[in-house]
């Protein structure tokens, strides 16, 4: 009962604290929205186009680029603005369709379409390779119309329409794609990426920053006053642990709820997801309580905690998938509990994993939680008993 009273008193203070509520509720949701909308766009090349011709054939090429697989097309009014976007990496390649392209093609001449991109920049060269493929396919109709006009006479536009009609039904040399696997090693894109990673990041950072509350309680002499009552250090430790765990759990459930309802995130097997949420809340509890006993001033806690949280989040794959970094960084990343939590969420969201599939990740997380909780509670008990 005393434990619950201590926990209830702390919980009421947090609920009344608008700043704490901002960090627990509002900030994670904002970050999920922003990172989710950005990560949703990866996996395709962003290509800019400046059409200086605006003839039917140029517009047809623009249409082909806009509907090509692997390309997101952005239109620019001038080459200068397109080049600026390319330099800033807002696009991976800029295509310039020259003025008079339509007339040249109709008269059987060739047109050089400029694709801007640095030769030493492989990302830009890859985008140009993708663009070249679309242009080659699009140019097939023009070649056919021009050839037919030369061979049998007639109108270019009529032959072009015929070529477009025949292209759909004619026999061809095709490229068929077969996937060798269906289970991804990375989280799905969009909000299904940002929601679980931000859950991992923010529950941890919030718990660490929450260490400041414990320092304030200590500085205000509230622990001393509690101990003056018939309350044992063990009861205070349990009360503090319980409230930290409760906050971490409530924040996790809020993110899961908002993710599912607002952003349509499917969190996978409910039993496994629940086990993962509880394990991560325990890790956060241990980390937050340890921060509360290690730091000596609230300022240290509120400044160092976000730094530690962000760095561990980066190492652990909350800011980018560990698949894209080298094997050394992946190994270093798994020194943090974050990487194991992200691995477990990946198994649930991308591979429809069950409890047994994330058993190893959960065991590691529980080991982290146990180590942190033992260290934190023993330090707190020692401080209270002193």
């Amino acid at each position, binding site marked *: 009962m005393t434990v619950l009273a201590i926990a209830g008193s702390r919980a009421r203070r947090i609920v009344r604290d608008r*700043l704490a509520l901002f960090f627990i509720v509002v900030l994670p949701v*904002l970050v999920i929205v*922003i990172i989710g*909308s950005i990560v949703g*766009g990866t*996996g395709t090349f962003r290509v800019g186009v400046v059409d200086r011709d605006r003839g039917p054939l140029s517009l047809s090429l623009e249409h082909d680029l806009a509907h090509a697989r692997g390309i997101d097309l952005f239109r620019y009014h001038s080459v200068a603005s397109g080049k*600026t976007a*390319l*330099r*800033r*990496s807002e696009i991976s390649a*800029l295509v310039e369709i020259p003025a008079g392209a339509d007339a040249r*093609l109709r008269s059987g001449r*060739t047109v*050089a379409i*400029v*694709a801007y*991109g*640095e030769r*030493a*920049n*492989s*990302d830009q*060269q*890859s985008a140009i*390779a*993708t663009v070249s*493929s*679309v242009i*080659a396919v699009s*140019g*097939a109709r023009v*070649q*056919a119309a021009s*050839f*037919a006009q030369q*061979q049998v006479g007639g109108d270019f536009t*009529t032959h072009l329409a015929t*070529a477009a009609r*025949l292209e759909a039904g*004619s*026999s*061809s*040399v*095709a*490229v068929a*794609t*077969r*996937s*060798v*696997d269906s289970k*991804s090693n990375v989280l799905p894109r969009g909000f299904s990426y940002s929601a679980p990673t931000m859950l991992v990041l923010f529950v941890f950072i919030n718990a660490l920053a929450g260490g400041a509350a414990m320092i304030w309680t200590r500085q205000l002499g509230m622990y001393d006053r509690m101990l003056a009552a018939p309350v044992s250090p063990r009861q205070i430790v349990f009360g503090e642990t319980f409230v930290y765990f409760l906050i971490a759990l409530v924040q996790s459930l809020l993110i899961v709820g908002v993710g599912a309802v607002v952003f349509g995130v499917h969190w996978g097997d409910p039993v496994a997801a629940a086990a993962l949420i509880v394990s991560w809340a325990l890790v956060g509890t241990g980390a937050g309580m340890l921060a509360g006993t290690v730091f000596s001033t609230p300022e*240290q806690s*509120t400044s*160092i905690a976000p*730094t530690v949280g*962000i760095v561990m989040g*980066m190492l652990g794959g909350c800011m980018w998938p560990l698949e894209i*970094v080298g094997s050394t*960084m992946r190994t270093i990343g798994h020194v943090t509990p974050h990487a194991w939590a992200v691995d477990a969420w990946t198994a649930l969201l991308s591979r429809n994993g069950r409890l047994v599939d994330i058993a190893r990740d959960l065991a590691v997380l529980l080991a982290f939680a146990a180590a942190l909780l033992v260290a934190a509670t023993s330090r707190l008990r020692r401080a209270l008993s002193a």
Partner: protein
Amino acid sequence: MPPVLVIAGKDLRQRFRDRSAIVLGFVAPLAIAALMSFAFRGADTFHVTIGVVDRDHGPIAAAFTGFLLGPDLRGIVTERPVTDVTTARRLVHDGTIAAAIVIPPGFSTAATRSGNTRLVELTSVNSRLGGEVSRSLAESFVSQVNADRLSVATALSGASGTTAGTVAQLTAAAEHLRVPESVVNRPIGSRPLKAVSYYSPAMAIFFLFFAIGFTARSFYSELRDGMIDRIAAAPVRPATVLFGKALSVVVYGIASLGTVLLCTALLFGAHWGNPLSVAALCLAMTTAVVALTAFVIAVARTDRQSDGFSALIVFGLSLLGGNFVTISAAPPLMRRLALLTPNGWALRGFVDLTTGARGAAVVLQPVVAILAFSAVFASLAVVFSRRLVIR
């Protein structure tokens, strides 16, 4: 020593005595920059290894291998011969190669006739971009064959009468055709935007924003302890106190941003261009931090409230301005929203400098925008500070 410098010196000494100022201003951004540099070493560029299973051994299969080994693709593609489909599937699955192209038996013969045939691309869900590039290259290669076939079919469709001789004649004529639209690659002379070049100023600015909260809290702490009243009793004008505190923030900000940019240039190979332009951006950004600090002090009533306002400003501006994510990868609307923030403009300036943009406008526009933002918040601070004086 002028009172302004005395007050600024006192504030700076106080700040540096608390290790958190050193952590936030120097250690944290440098640690994150180092992490970024290490994590993305070699990942700033894109390269794919494509396996080729040649079960055809004909001239077109050889031409495809030659196409992948050509000088245009040397920087992007490594071609790896693979003996059989099972091995190719395993290599794609374990990520050794990004994708594999299987050339079926009889492909060369079928491709030169009019029947259907196809190349088969093996991809993995874990290598989407590699799969897209591999597919594009394969499609690019077969497009000329398809264009020639389509040319013959279109001409035949327009011909009045079709005989075997006409088909043979048109097929022979089409063999020498080339798709009339060709792609010419032209560089623009820019440097690539490295992760370390984006995130080191982004993180330095993010952590500099914490100075808003610290300064505001120290002001309310001094107000509560009667320090401000004691200073007011001395022959020192309120403006002197204000300038002294502002100067301490400017010095701290410049030292923090300058150290991070210098260290990233020396240790991690970041390019920052003209030092004067960099200095102008840093100065403008610290001016914005001073204006925001004044605004928070003027609006808040207690140190706890100032913490709240500071947190909103720090995380609101950082999220919107692109300090946590590469804003160039964001949708256009988010890129526009970023320009409502001083940090968004500063990051645009740093991106332009590091990617090799030249001319005064590169930093002039961001500096003017940041100063305009600062002026708005400084004016609001003046309006709200009347309430503070009355209080």
